[in-house]
């Protein structure tokens, strides 16, 4: 690993973590959502540095460009913080969140032990087609998973319509 690589790795890592912290701590929900977009961006940069260029592009396209837009929409227009929405941060929820955090931390610690994650250095030779290797695996070995995804998306479509329609009648 070259020094330059490490510098960039820590740069994006720090940006991702710091933005995530801001996301959690900001009072204004729109500002918080924008910090989360920033986290997504830094993660995309990290993916690219791991040579997962396609995943990096998709990270920006889907997470920063699509999911966060919807997130922002909801936050912007539901007037969070100004309506009489009940505070869901009850002691039970807080305890649950803390438990999840501890489990995640434990998982990270176990995984980061030597040997669990194979060390992959980014290839020195330029790749001319970064999508084909992903695609060939996805559409042969993981074909079933791919087809089942369509069912998942179908359920999501139906769910979205049902929810919106019910809200409308109320």
């Amino acid at each position: 690993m070259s020094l330059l690589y490490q510098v960039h790795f820590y740069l994006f890592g720090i940006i991702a973590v710091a933005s995530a912290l801001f996301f959690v701590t900001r009072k204004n929900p729109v500002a918080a959502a924008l910090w989360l977009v920033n986290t997504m961006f830094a993660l995309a940069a990290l993916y690219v540095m791991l040579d997962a260029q396609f995943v990096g592009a998709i990270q920006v396209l889907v997470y920063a460009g699509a999911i966060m837009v919807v997130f922002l929409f909801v936050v912007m227009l539901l007037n969070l913080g100004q309506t009489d929405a009940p505070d869901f941060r009850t002691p039970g929820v807080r305890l649950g969140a803390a438990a999840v955090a501890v489990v995640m931390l434990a998982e990270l610690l176990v995984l980061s032990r030597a040997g669990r994650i194979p060390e992959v250095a980014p290839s020195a030779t330029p790749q001319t087609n970064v999508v084909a290797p992903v695609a060939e695996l996805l559409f042969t070995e993981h074909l079933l998973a791919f087809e089942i995804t369509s069912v998942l998306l179908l359920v999501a479509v139906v769910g979205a319509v049902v929810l919106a329609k019910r809200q409308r009648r109320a």
Partner: protein
Amino acid sequence: MVRAYFPLLLLFGFVALNAGLILAIGALTVRSRPTPVKSQPYESGIAPLGDARERFSVKFYMVAMLFIIFDIETVFMIPWGVAFRQLSCAVALTPAGCPAGQVSFFGLSEMLVFIGILLVGFAYVWKKGALQWD
């Protein structure tokens, strides 16, 4: 190779810097002289009534949610499109293309199944009138 992405990083920094500079110059060169009327929202001369950030038609959320779903579908189609020629060839591709008699329907049929299932959802959305904007 990661080096190819370095210009993008540089460019992002440069353009963001420019954006900041333009806004700063605009703010620094001219003194702001606010008056009560000037600092009201401009709504065609009518005195603004209440806050603009109201709840909005559920249609907009609907479109946004459908957008995510179809965006993900597109994202799956991109690698399929790239690998299509290899997927529809029973043996490894040669530089001249697929050897004669080795063309297979594998690539097309797997996407047809995927699109078919999603078309059911699309037809449902259409029938339910979620795409109708009135």
